[in-house]
């Protein structure tokens, strides 16, 4: 792409900055794709799309429309695909599609014009929140292929997704139930508080009784409908002998409710229905906000991981037929084109060349394969076409097995919160029972009085209400910095981490070859020649060389009798000189104890320069590792050769003892799970077992988009830059929780002692409790801005 123009003009269609300007109808576009979409839209009178775009805000960043047009959607017509992906109900196919290109309500409007142009569409709903398109199509009249190609013409690449209807439905019902519980709690709280204001304002006589009865009446739905979850969780945690925050809440509700109803029956105007219903309302709402924030971040990633739809050419008697990978079965012959990832385990039938086996070794240098060799899913081919025979279907391929076997075995980590609150609640229960016990013979009434005061004082407001808010805020700040939290308690584990294990290729380094040193002749002529020769091949060496020459503004020159011999290199005539680029054999480099790929360039059969290529270290790796070294033991785990790992280790200041080379994915997992407090960060599929078994597992952006569900934390941007931000946020969250707990401990112990001595009436306790929550809330807000400032400084 040419260097960007000084004034950043925006493409009229997709709004992205323009590099190579295309003009049409007096408007400016960024690519031919956008121009063609614009033409199509204005042709069928849909140019309102552009008016609507102005007044709607972009939920996601748009993408240019150029590579959308040429997909061939015939695969969707096969019977086997249809039943697998769509539900057939009385003659109507119901299916769900995901598209990265839906980014604002103008897209939703445009997609809704599809039924006008495509026949047979019964129902179509677009949701821009999770960019899903729901379509009901009449079996006989309509065809999905027409629908998808029409959408592609308008710049929307739709991918069918296999969402299990059940899980989605259940999740939606869950969300609705929570909302209803909050609504009921809100109404009842409002009314009960009104009745209490009346009693504080001095109502007396039969109205006082009326209000008492009404408050009791309004508390019933709060107790039995809104707080059902608290009792359920308490029951489960008792059954599974595991502590949960809901126990103290449930106990406070039961005791408060019992005490309140006893007084109401005896006509005493002394009940805590308003305090308890406010407690239930606040806790339910803060948890709803927490779930909402977490779902927003995760739903996008989860959808991405569902996209395993890749289309392959299957060999039938007559010709090659496009078919969806999920409909393959063992024995079929499929074509593996260059630069494509194999979707299932297979054996090579025909053709030879180089394949990247990084899935196993994590080392991205392509390796020569020959006919009959077994290949695993996830491998990428670098040479021209291979014909392979399917051994295992994608669903049970090596890669799929690996992800399945890794289901969440999470260490039973006792968060700080749970450990202290267990102690706190235990103590308050004991003291409440003690008071009751000692006061039993003489004044049970006084005893109950104080016991309830104790329980109200130790109400878990700090734990139940404020902690979810702290975590909610952390999730929000991290999400802005491109860090998605799949396990919220991972944040609490980070400060306990002792060792950090880094994967080398793709995490510490760029994961792709780039020019290290260039010795010998280095002039414009060489650059042009190398660039023109290497431009077409997709071999990693070729891409590295052409990238490097391009940076030295090489110009492409016409190449005569170009010839690429697999694995050795390329040769050809460039402006009457005969050029060859050959990879010198690997053994040569071995004696120097330094495995790296060296390439030499011959001009008219005479070697003029040798280039050494290696996997360069990311810029930020050194600074981040040196910063983390002060606090953690840094180790590198990689499937690559030992020497490479040592080299990278030395570059970032790690002794060789901490670098482990040639480690298989399984043994990586073993090393990590041995030492308890280990954090594993990696980007490759081979790191997956280690990430899921580690104390804290972080996956960075890489080829493993299909399994991110199983890691604790996912970095949206490559490399380890966000690790620093993550650790800062985690430390801050833990400090806040510590302060919360500390404060809660102090005021509870104080409260319990005073209450047992009878100085605190339940009324005062009821007032004191929200005060403490307010104090904690202000503390939370104060820390929150502190954290914002610190993060802004970091990034």
């Amino acid at each position, binding site marked *: 792409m040419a260097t960007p123009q000084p004034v950043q003009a925006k493409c009229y269609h997709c709004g992205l900055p323009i590099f190579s300007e295309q003009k049409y109808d007096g408007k400016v576009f960024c690519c031919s794709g956008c121009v063609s979409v614009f033409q199509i839209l204005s042709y069928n009178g849909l140019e*309102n799309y552009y*008016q*609507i775009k102005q*007044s*709607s*805000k972009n*939920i996601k960043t748009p993408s240019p429309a150029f590579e959308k047009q040429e997909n061939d959607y015939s695969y969707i017509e096969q019977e086997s695909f249809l039943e697998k992906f769509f539900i057939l109900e009385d003659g109507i196919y119901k299916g769900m599609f995901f598209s990265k290109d839906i980014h604002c*309500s*103008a897209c*939703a*409007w445009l997609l809704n014009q599809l039924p006008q142009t495509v026949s047979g569409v019964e129902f179509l709903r*677009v*949701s*821009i*929140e999770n960019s899903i398109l729901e379509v009901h199509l009449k079996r006989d009249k309509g065809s999905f292929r027409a629908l998808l190609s029409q959408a592609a013409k308008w710049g929307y690449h739709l991918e069918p997704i296999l969402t299990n209807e059940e899980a989605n439905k259940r999740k*939606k019902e869950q969300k*609705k139930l929570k*909302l*209803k519980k909050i*609504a*009921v709690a809100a*109404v009842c709280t409002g*009314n009960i508080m009104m009745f209490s204001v009346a009693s504080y304002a001095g109502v007396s006589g039969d*109205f006082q009784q*009326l209000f008492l009865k*009404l408050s009791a009446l309004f508390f019933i739905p709060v107790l039995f409908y809104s707080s059902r979850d608290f009792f359920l969780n308490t029951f489960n945690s008792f059954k599974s002998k595991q502590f949960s925050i809901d126990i103290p809440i449930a106990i406070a509700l039961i005791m408060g409710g019992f005490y309140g109803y006893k007084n109401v029956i005896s006509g005493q105007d002394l009940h805590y229905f308003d305090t308890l219903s406010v407690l239930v309302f606040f806790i339910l709402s803060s948890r709803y906000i927490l779930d909402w924030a977490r779902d927003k971040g995760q739903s996008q990633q989860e959808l991405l991981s569902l996209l395993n739809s890749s289309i392959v050419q299957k060999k039938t008697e007559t010709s090659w037929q496009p078919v969806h990978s999920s409909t393959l079965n063992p024995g079929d012959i499929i074509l593996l084109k260059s630069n494509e990832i194999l979707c299932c385990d297979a054996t090579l039938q025909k053709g030879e060349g180089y394949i990247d086996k990084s899935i196993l070794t994590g080392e991205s240098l392509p390796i020569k394969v020959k006919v009959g060799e077994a290949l695993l899913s996830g491998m990428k081919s670098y040479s021209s076409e291979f014909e392979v025979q399917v051994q295992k279907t994608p669903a049970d391929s090596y890669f799929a097995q690996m992800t399945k076997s890794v289901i969440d075995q999470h260490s039973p980590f006792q968060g700080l919160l749970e450990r202290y609150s267990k102690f706190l609640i235990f103590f308050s229960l004991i003291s409440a029972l003690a008071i009751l016990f000692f006061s039993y013979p003489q004044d049970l009434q006084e005893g109950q009085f104080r016991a309830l005061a104790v329980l109200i004082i130790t109400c878990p407001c700090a734990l139940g209400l404020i902690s979810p808010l702290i975590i909610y805020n952390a999730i929000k700040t991290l999400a802005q910095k491109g860090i998605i939290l799949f396990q919220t308690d991972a944040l609490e584990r980070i400060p306990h981490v002792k060792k950090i294990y880094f994967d080398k290729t793709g995490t510490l380094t760029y994961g792709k070859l780039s020019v290290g040193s260039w010795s010998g002749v280095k002039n414009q002529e060489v650059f042009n020649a190398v660039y023109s020769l290497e431009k077409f091949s997709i071999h990693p060496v070729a891409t590295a060389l052409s990238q490097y020459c391009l940076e030295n503004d090489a110009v492409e020159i016409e190449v005569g009798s170009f010839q690429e011999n697999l694995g050795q290199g390329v040769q050809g005539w460039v402006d009457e000189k005969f050029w060859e680029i050959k990879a010198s054999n690997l053994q040569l480099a071995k004696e120097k104890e330094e495995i790296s790929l060296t390439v030499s360039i011959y001009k008219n059969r005479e070697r003029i320069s040798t280039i050494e290529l290696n996997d360069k270290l990311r810029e930020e790796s050194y600074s981040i590792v040196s910063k983390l070294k002060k606090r953690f033991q840094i180790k590198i785990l990689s499937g690559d050769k030992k020497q490479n790992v040592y080299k990278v280790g030395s570059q970032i200041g790690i002794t060789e003892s901490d670098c482990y080379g040639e480690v298989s994915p399984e043994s990586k997992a073993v090393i990590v799970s041995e030492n308890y407090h280990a954090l594993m960060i990696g980007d490759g599929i081979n790191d997956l077992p280690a990430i899921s078994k580690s104390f804290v597992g972080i996956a960075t952006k890489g080829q493993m988009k299909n399994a991110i569900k199983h890691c604790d934390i996912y970095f949206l941007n490559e490399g380890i830059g966000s690790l620093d931000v993550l650790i800062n946020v985690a430390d801050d969250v833990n400090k806040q929780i510590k302060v919360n707990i500390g404060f809660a401990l102090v005021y509870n112990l104080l409260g319990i002692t005073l209450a047992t001595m009878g100085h605190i009436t339940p009324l005062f306790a009821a007032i004191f409790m929200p005060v403490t929550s307010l104090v904690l809330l202000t503390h939370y807000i104060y820390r929150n801005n502190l954290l914002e400032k610190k993060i802004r400084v970091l990034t």
Partner: protein
Amino acid sequence: MNILIFLIPISILLGLTFVALCFWSINNEQYEDLDLNAEKIIFDDESLRRLNDDK
């Protein structure tokens, strides 16, 4: 002040009706995809014609 014996049930009755309405709205998935629904009123068909004329 015994009018309250009449007024309170009426108000509670009203409150219950609105609770029922609230339940129905949640069940009827009225709160899915709020951003889209907020913007949709801007470009419903009728105003589209107006949008064109303003150009």
